[in-house]
């Protein structure tokens, strides 16, 4: 046998060792892995890190692995069997997701409000307006600026199919615009990346953008952005976060989905919905920002509390009158009592 042939055999062996080592480690030696695919807004506020620490301390045999991406890729992860649980904020996409059989046991966990942010001088005059009026003013302002070369941007969009991007598209639609057409305007910028990056670009371009409140407050407090919240706490800006377990029994993908860690995923959803965790969520960030970044949704929905926001959530995110219709539930009846 020649030298290069011997070397190739050694190389093949080494490759196999790396693969086998990874497999053995994750299947036998490590803790049980719970892969959560989540939206950037939950992750970037640091809330999930705290919840992860707390949960792992209470459940030492579980190792939570968080992949932070948009709602779009989170759903893709679930379809491919690459995640066990998804935390997202796009009710329409969630409904399709359940209907197509990819996920089960949806639970609405928390809510907050998106906010339209921009420069304090507010050149397009949005403050105090409804979102529809504000977007119309922004579009008119953008259409009338002298520089139409595409250098000057008035509105910055995530453009990444995330929950925030989905929300933005529906806001433009509700204001009477065709999103495909408006997004092609020279004053309309698209980053295709996360909330933090998009806020940075909006700040740089002195443009308006739609942000989740958590990421924005953090950026505002750390003086990373000079922009201010111009519109918030309107029904149209409601942002609702849900957890869904990935279905373990997808007929089309049986061999792939049977490897889903369903038990731990459900245990984590039950944990998120527990009174203690809900309280934790409400308190998170209060000290740093002077206001809650997320509000608990579980108890107000159970109580059908009188605040208008409860009605808004039911209107925007309920499917056939509940978090999760009975046909999309697998076990865990206590979760829906």
């Amino acid at each position, binding site marked *: 046998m020649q*030298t*290069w042939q011997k070397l*190739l055999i050694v*190389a093949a062996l080494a490759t196999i060792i790396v693969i086998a080592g990874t497999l053995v480690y994750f299947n036998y030696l490590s803790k049980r892995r719970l892969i959560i695919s989540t939206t950037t807004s939950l992750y970037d506020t*640091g809330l999930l890190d705290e919840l992860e620490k707390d949960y792992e301390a209470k459940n030492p045999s579980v*190792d939570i692995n*968080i992949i*932070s991406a948009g709602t779009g890729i989170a759903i893709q992860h679930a379809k491919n*069997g*690459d995640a066990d649980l998804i935390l997202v904020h796009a009710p329409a996409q969630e409904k399709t997701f359940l209907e197509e059989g990819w996920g089960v046991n949806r639970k609405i966990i928390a809510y907050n409000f998106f906010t339209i942010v921009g420069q304090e001088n507010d050149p397009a005059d949005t403050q105090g307006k409804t979102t529809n009026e504000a977007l119309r003013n922004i579009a008119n302002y953008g259409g009338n600026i002298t520089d139409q070369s595409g250098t000057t941007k008035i509105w910055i969009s995530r453009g990444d199919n995330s929950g925030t991007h989905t929300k933005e598209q529906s806001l433009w639609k509700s204001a009477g615009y065709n999103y495909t057409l408006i997004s092609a305007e020279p004053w309309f910028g698209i980053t295709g990346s996360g909330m933090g990056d998009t806020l940075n670009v909006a700040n740089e371009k002195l443009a308006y953008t739609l942000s989740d409140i958590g990421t924005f407050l953090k950026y505002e407090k750390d003086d990373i952005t000079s922009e201010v919240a111009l519109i918030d706490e309107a029904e149209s800006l409601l942002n609702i976060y849900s957890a869904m377990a990935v279905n373990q029994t997808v007929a089309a993908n049986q061999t792939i989905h049977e490897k889903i860690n369903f038990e731990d995923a459900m245990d984590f959803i039950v944990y998120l919905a527990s009174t203690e965790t809900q309280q934790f969520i409400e308190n998170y960030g209060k000290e740093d920002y002077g206001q809650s970044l997320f509000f608990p949704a579980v108890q107000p929905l159970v109580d059908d509390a009188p605040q208008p926001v409860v009605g808004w959530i039911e209107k925007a995110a309920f499917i056939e009158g509940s978090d999760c219709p009975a046909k999309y539930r697998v076990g865990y009846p206590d979760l829906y009592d």
Partner: protein
Amino acid sequence: MVDILGGIIEAFQLIVTGDPMLYGIVYRTLFFSGIAVILATLWGTPISMLLGLREFRGKSIVKGLFNTLIGIPTVVLGLFLFLLFSRGGPLGFLGLLYTPGAIILGEAILVTPILVSIMTTAIEAVDPEIMKLAKTLGASESQASIAVLKEAINGVLLSNVASFNRAIAELGVALLVGGNITGLTDVLTTAISRYTARGDLDLAIALGILLMLIVFSINIIIIAARKAKMLLTIGKSPQ
């Protein structure tokens, strides 16, 4: 506006105090890239020996291919491997996606072209007489090849260092197949992108400084190695 100076000062504090999370990321980066380069060297050496020492049909095409692949965008390779390793993909049954193993394999594949190209050039630069001489002295084909490899040792080391440099500074593969999972698959580049997005700029700056320190040290090693090689050649020169 962003307080750059404050960020840098806080960054140095984190570096000096030996923040365990920070050094965990550094350790993982060095470990993943290190194993990746070892793996690529194991694949790359026999390929380079074939390309450098033998004549066969299509050799120039293969060499051209490796040269072209040096510039492959990391994010494209990352996407390709993501589709391959995803549970729904062809290699999904291995369960490699979002594990350190996936990053190591991905980075090994990423650096193989640069490694093979440099190593092949180094082997080709060795005087062919050495192979002949070794054989005349009774060396077998294998022993003669190894003699050539020894002569090309500087080039071999350079190929390793350049590969390590590429692996440590890349973002696309580690992000897409590693998933940037805290404490498991986050490396310097992906962690910088995460902490920038989160607005934790002091951490991002600290990680950036560490990454630059590592890359600069590597380049200093390359320069030193080149100088040493030059001195060696002058020393050997018969004139």
